[in-house]
């Protein structure tokens, strides 16, 4: 297990009172069900003092990045209270409630597989790989709603260069953090966890593909995938994996969570495509949060100029 949780007493956030109460309720729940061993672990965690649930911090030295849309940015409050992050519950409002106490420090991302030499990155390392840019992207969920978000990060290709993948590396596999002690609702999500995602190497190299550490001028809130996530704006939102702990360069197409859950509904590529419907609903239109009328969905979410060439000759109906 990467990113082992330890109490980090140097982290200076103040834990809100409600948080303590939640922890206590949870502790008592566990004890009552007779999980004495794991209960003790929770108890000692609880006794260890201030929980390190992170609060977004201002990010300095962020420069304007390329590919910015000039569409109206979605209010931050919508982007932080309407989330799909099944590790913290399947309701849209669950993650903002249940991820409050999620510990994102210390954090470690393992880079491994078909690379010259595997290594691990701390958040400090990640922040230094390339200058942080603000990228205002459209973000289109497979559920037919969309948002416009000012992400902060840099092209994932910078990390690929640092990783020095071998010629055998054809795909990149991603894995999210998962620990049922911090994510007790995970086992009830109805999908296999830890969450897995993947990209073809050329997709991962595309400059649009963002390694993201912040949004709205600050570090990522927990419910939006703190402390580091991917953002792939021409694909449905679930491809943009959150709370990243593992990046593995591999030879063949890696398994991905939603594809495992329902292979006929969610493909490996999952490019935004208004012409290929989800089996249960239409993808032709979307509801931009904050707007009343549905708007037409754009091919590749409007990023065709940058990415259409990646798929020339491919049948996007088959490779949905």
């Amino acid at each position, binding site marked *: 297990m990467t990113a082992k949780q330890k109490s980090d007493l140097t982290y200076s956030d103040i834990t809100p009172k409600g948080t303590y109460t939640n922890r206590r309720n949870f502790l008592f729940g566990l004890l009552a069900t007779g999980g004495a061993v794991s209960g003790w672990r929770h108890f000692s965690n609880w006794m260890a003092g201030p929980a390190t649930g992170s609060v977004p911090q201002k990010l300095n030295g962020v420069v304007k990045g390329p590919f910015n849309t000039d569409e109206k940015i979605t209010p931050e*409050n*919508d*982007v932080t*209270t*309407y989330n799909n992050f*099944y590790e913290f519950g*399947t309701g*849209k*409002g669950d993650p903002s409630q249940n991820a409050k106490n999620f510990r994102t420090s210390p954090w470690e991302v393992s880079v491994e597989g078909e690379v010259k030499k595997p290594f691990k990155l701390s958040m400090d390392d990640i922040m230094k790989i390339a200058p942080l840019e603000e990228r205002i992207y459209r973000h289109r969920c497979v*559920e037919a*709603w969309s948002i416009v978000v000012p992400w902060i990060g840099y092209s994932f290709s910078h990390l690929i260069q640092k990783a020095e993948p071998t010629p055998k590396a054809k795909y990149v596999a991603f894995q999210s953090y998962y620990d049922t002690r911090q994510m007790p609702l995970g086992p*009830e*999500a*109805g*999908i296999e966890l830890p969450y897995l995602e993947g990209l073809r190497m050329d997709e991962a190299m595309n400059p649009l593909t963002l390694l993201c550490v912040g949004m709205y001028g600050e570090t990522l809130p927990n419910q939006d995938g703190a402390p580091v996530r991917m953002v792939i704006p021409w694909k449905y939102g679930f491809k943009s994996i959150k709370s990243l702990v593992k990046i593995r360069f591999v030879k063949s197409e890696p398994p991905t969570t939603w594809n495992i*859950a*329902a292979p006929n509904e969610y493909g490996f590529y999952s490019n935004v495509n208004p012409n290929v*419907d989800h089996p*249960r*609903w*239409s993808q032709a239109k979307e*509801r931009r*949060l*904050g707007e*009343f*009328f549905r708007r037409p969905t754009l091919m590749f979410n409007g990023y065709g100029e940058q990415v259409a060439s990646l798929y020339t000759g491919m049948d996007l109906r088959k490779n949905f």
Partner: protein
Amino acid sequence: MGSSVVNSVLTSKWTKVVVFLACLIPAGVLIWRVTQGDLTANPIEFLEHWTGDWTIRFLIITLCVTPLRKIVKMPQLIRFRRMLGLFAFFYACLHFSTWVGLDRFFNLADMWADVEKRKFITVGFAGFVLLIPLAVTSTKGWIRRLGGKKWQWLHRAIYISAILGVIHYAWLVKSDEHKPLQYAAMVGVLLLWRIGVWVRKKWQQQPVTRSVRPDEPTTAETA
């Protein structure tokens, strides 16, 4: 005696008023949340889920009436069944009109395409349409016009509506089937109870006696 108190409460017209007002609470909470702007970042979806949830809940509550009055021996509970059923229809109407008026903004072509193409919408739409004749014929006049037996058969359509409602919900969700399964279990138990009663009745009834027994209700009281 305690039972006479229960009886007078159950038969009081004020109890009906209280139940009526209680049934309006979900709508009241919704209106309150509208005035507070507390409808999440996706208000239309929120309205759809809220009204849909309460439709299924009221269908289940309505289906509880008959088993409850038999099990706890409170036949007076029948007084509330029509009202509860009509509230299920009321919330179904809110649900349907949210979809028509807000989600699809009266785009008939769009909606019909969905009804045809999307299984979960087809099923939900069918469940809603089935409730319409039940709401229309819920009056005493219609019971008389149709006759108890026929009326009762017609109103068994609520079983199908409840099943369709649960399927509609189960087919909508992406992976977490907990809530639809809970509803399915409740509807399942309520329908199995009815099947059990029916089987026992068949068992006890001698094939020759097709006449109405004295304890068998002659009006529409057993649906």
